[in-house]
């Protein structure tokens, strides 16, 4: 119980202060340098270097015809429209979740998460079925006699916008929610006691505080949308081609790496400009939910903004005043009925498409609506297909590998980001999060180029590395959030009670952080399980993952087996969320 001489004798000088941070941060930094910076750099370099020397030929080609600029313009238009609609629709959902309590809150979050984690592919494919010539909408309208020949709903701007908004809405909600949860609930109420009516209190107090969340979700949606290709490829026509699709063409069909590099430079430039603007106005800190403080801006802008908000406030109060008054004294505790109804309608709408896959997967009539009869033949075909089964198995292995690797290098980095006071932390965090910022397509193509040289194409290891690069920022972010809520005095207490650092981790830190760590792991697992862009290139021709196999089937021939796969994925995700939530609750209950 007294300490040993040996133990204290070796501690006469302080241990070097740099060693721990380096050990904790280095693996992640090395991974990103080797498999993000290097590949993307290679790809960009290919646009000005053709094997013999410097060239600008790809750029000449890029600007020779109006094609690429037009596509860039379309891409921006679709991305901006998607951002606008998704953010506006997400606001009431996030707001309701942030004010809800107990089981109501859990239910709301469950449905948002279900959409969030349901494969992009499944959701995009569902719209093909809904909007197709024999799809849900057309059959319904025709059977009601409203139209007598099917309308062309697919392959247009409207279809793409619907699909994109549907794909991005859950992301918008989750990002916004992170900020809204941190807004002090008492502030709008304080405004009330100071004489502000509810509308004014909302628009002049709550809304400005929630703006960083709106901004964060807008930029996340915009950046994801601009690098997206699944929705425009499945739901868009010629006129809705997005720039990422051109990159795929250059790499897969014409093998023109120089041009692919040049297009990537163009895309990356647009994204960087957007990010610089964002940082100027809001600061990156708001992205991680760290601070909900908007930096001081131009005062004229501020004054104008203030007036607009005050006007909105008075307008809402006037509208509220027109409504029949309910018992004024009980009014305060009343539930926001209209808001709740609206949000649930929205949640049903975003969940429904994936659920349509269930009846179709057991119907005899293929993918036409309405389904007829009952059969399990599609499931039988699925189980009998070695291609699907191998893809499933490969996806599970890769996702597990990605989860483990991401945790192994992401958790120490998150500890470093939250606990240390080192210099350059902001820069390091920005670097760690950069895989989210760089459009996925550029990462995927660059990685393919590098993997090909290293012989990693078509290997499990290659996929695990590739998926870890894009999954690890999410692990770091979720772990940072978890660690910020963790009382570090518990570690100190454990150490003062005699626990060595590893014992303190094992007996105290990890058990308490267990639920948070599990959800980080699941985040990485699910990111990998649903990853298509990197797998599209790096899985090689023969060793497809589940999303890659799905993609190949959908783009080549559409069979009801897809509906069976979709149903399976949906149930898998629902189970996962349910189990994760159960585990979280059990750990909270002690």
């Amino acid at each position, binding site marked *: *119980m*007294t*300490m*040993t*001489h040996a*133990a*204290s004798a070796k*501690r*006469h*000088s*302080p*241990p070097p202060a740099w060693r721990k941070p380096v050990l904790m941060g280095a693996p992640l930094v090395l991974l990103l340098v080797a498999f993000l910076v290097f590949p993307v750099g290679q790809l960009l370099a290919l646009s000005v270097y053709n094997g013999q020397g410097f060239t600008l030929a790809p750029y000449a080609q890029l600007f020779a015809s109006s094609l690429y600029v037009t596509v860039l313009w379309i891409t921006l238009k679709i991305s901006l429209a998607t951002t606008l609609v998704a953010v506006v629709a997400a606001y009431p959902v996030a707001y309701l979740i942030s004010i809800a309590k107990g089981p109501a809150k859990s239910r709301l979050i469950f449905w948002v998460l279900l959409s969030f984690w349901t494969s992009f592919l499944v959701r995009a494919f569902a719209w093909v079925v809904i909007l197709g010539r024999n799809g849900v909408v057309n059959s319904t309208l025709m059977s009601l006699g409203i139209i007598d020949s099917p309308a062309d709903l697919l392959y247009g701007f409207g279809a793409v916008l619907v699909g994109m908004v549907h794909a991005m809405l859950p992301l918008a909600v989750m990002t916004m929610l992170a900020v809204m949860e941190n807004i002090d609930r008492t502030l709008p109420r304080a405004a009330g006691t100071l004489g502000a009516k509810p509308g004014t209190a909302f628009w002049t107090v709550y809304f400005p505080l929630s703006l960083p969340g709106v901004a964060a979700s807008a930029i996340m949606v915009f950046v994801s949308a601009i690098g997206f290709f699944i929705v425009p490829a499945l739901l868009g026509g010629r006129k809705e081609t997005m720039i990422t699709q051109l990159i795929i063409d250059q790499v897969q069909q014409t093998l023109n790496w120089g041009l692919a590099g040049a297009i990537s430079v163009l895309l990356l430039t647009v994204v960087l400009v957007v990010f610089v603007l964002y940082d100027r106005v809001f600061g990156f800190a708001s992205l991680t939910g760290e601070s909900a403080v908007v930096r001081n801006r131009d005062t004229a802008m501020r004054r104008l903004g203030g007036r607009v908000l005050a006007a909105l406030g008075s307008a809402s109060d006037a509208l509220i005043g027109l409504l029949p008054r309910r018992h004024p004294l009980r009014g305060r505790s009343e539930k926001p009925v209209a808001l709740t109804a609206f949000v649930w309608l929205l949640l049903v709408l975003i969940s429904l498409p994936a659920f349509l896959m269930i009846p179709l997967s057991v119907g005899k009539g293929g993918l036409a609506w309405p389904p007829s009869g009952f059969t399990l033949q599609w499931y039988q075909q699925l189980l009998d297909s070695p291609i699907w089964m191998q893809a499933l198995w490969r996806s599970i292995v890769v996702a597990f590998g990605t989860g483990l690797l991401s945790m192994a290098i992401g958790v120490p980095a998150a500890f470093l980001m939250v606990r240390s006071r080192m210099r350059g932390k902001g820069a390091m965090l920005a670097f760690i999060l950069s895989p989210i910022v760089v459009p996925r397509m550029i990462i995927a193509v660059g990685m393919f180029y590098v993997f090909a040289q290293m012989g990693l194409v078509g290997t499990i290891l290659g996929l695990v590395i590739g998926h870890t690069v894009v999954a690890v920022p999410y692990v770091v972010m979720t772990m940072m959030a978890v660690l910020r809520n963790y*009382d570090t*005095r*518990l570690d*100190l*207490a*454990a*150490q*003062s*009670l*005699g*626990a*060595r*650092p590893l*014992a303190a981790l094992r*007996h*105290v830190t990890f*058990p*308490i952080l267990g639920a948070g760590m599990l959800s980080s792991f699941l985040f990485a697992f699910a990111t990998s399980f649903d990853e298509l862009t990197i797998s599209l290139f790096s899985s090689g021709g023969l060793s497809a993952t589940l999303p890659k196999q799905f993609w190949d089937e959908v783009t080549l021939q559409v069979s009801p087996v897809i509906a069976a796969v979709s149903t399976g994925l949906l149930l898998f995700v629902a189970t996962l969320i349910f189990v994760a939530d159960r585990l979280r609750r059990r*750990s909270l209950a*002690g």
Partner: protein
Amino acid sequence: MSSSSLSVQGLAKRYGDFVALAPTDLVVADGEFLTLLGPSGSGKTTLLSLLAGLVPPDGGSVRIGSQDVTYAPPYERDIGVVFQNYALFPHMTIEENIAFPLKMRKVGAADAKRRAREALEMVHLPHIAGRYPRELSGGQQQRVALARCMVYKPSIILMDEPLGALDKKLREHMQLEIKRLHREMGTTVVYVTHDQEEAMTMSDRICLMNAGRIEQLGTPADLYFRPRSLFVADFLGESNILPAALRSRSGDEVEIGLGTQGIPGRALANGNDLPPGTEVRVMVRPQNLTVARGAGNAAGGLQGRVSEVMVTGSLTKVYMEPLDGKLPPLVAAFPTRNEADAVRIDDVLTLSWSGRDAVVIADAARAAGTA
């Protein structure tokens, strides 16, 4: 109480340019109850954390017993720490919490369980072993934290404002409890608080801190009756601090003249060896002022007009404006009397005191100015 259990030399800590603890020397005797007292931000937690090895120092050394532990991690020091918010492990039962340090010391499970139960009995909570921390009240959590710290009999226990979150009644109860346990176990305790009453009731010695340094170290009576600086006089309870000039010295007492009129009085020199004529401050505690009604016998005594009377149970406090307008307001305290002869607002009172109950405080700023 003879050998030193803990000694600190030149111990210092900076955060960037900010000096959280200036180089500090401190020796704590075996079995002593030493309190670090001071306003918030004065460096108490910093000093305690350095003793516990929770943060590394920028200089100086820490010895526990005969060992230099300056850079030893907490788990290699033979200490126990009670944290302000208890830091009970939320995922362990009370018994598991208490058995944790034993488990870390490789004590067998059965033995650990028995000792954990004993520790719980010592803090009068034998029935809650199977519960989780959040199922306990603040006072119970506090006692569990104590039990967890004492179960492995560390040679030193460090406590950082352990009673800060409790209400007054519970706090007083726990103060007695901690004193009792300290007596029974004979452990050295370093205790942090910003509450001067708590420090006075519990400590063998008080180490009063201010702005990252030790302002004065001594018994509660030393600090209360013989403060070395205005800060100390002011921090420990109410006092009258009056400007005065030294007249003459006799033994350890001095003759003084108060205020502009040079009202005569006596005070302890308190080790200050200053020449006659030096401007100083004189401190008298309210309860050491004797109050007489009316203008008194000798014209020119210290007189005040009553501006406020407060009855706080057993004591009555009287606040006065001195008739010599240059003196600060005065406060006197005496046992509450029957209403018949109670003091009323606007009464004029005459105040006197014994030379043993007043003390000279060298006024560093003014001394420097006149030198």
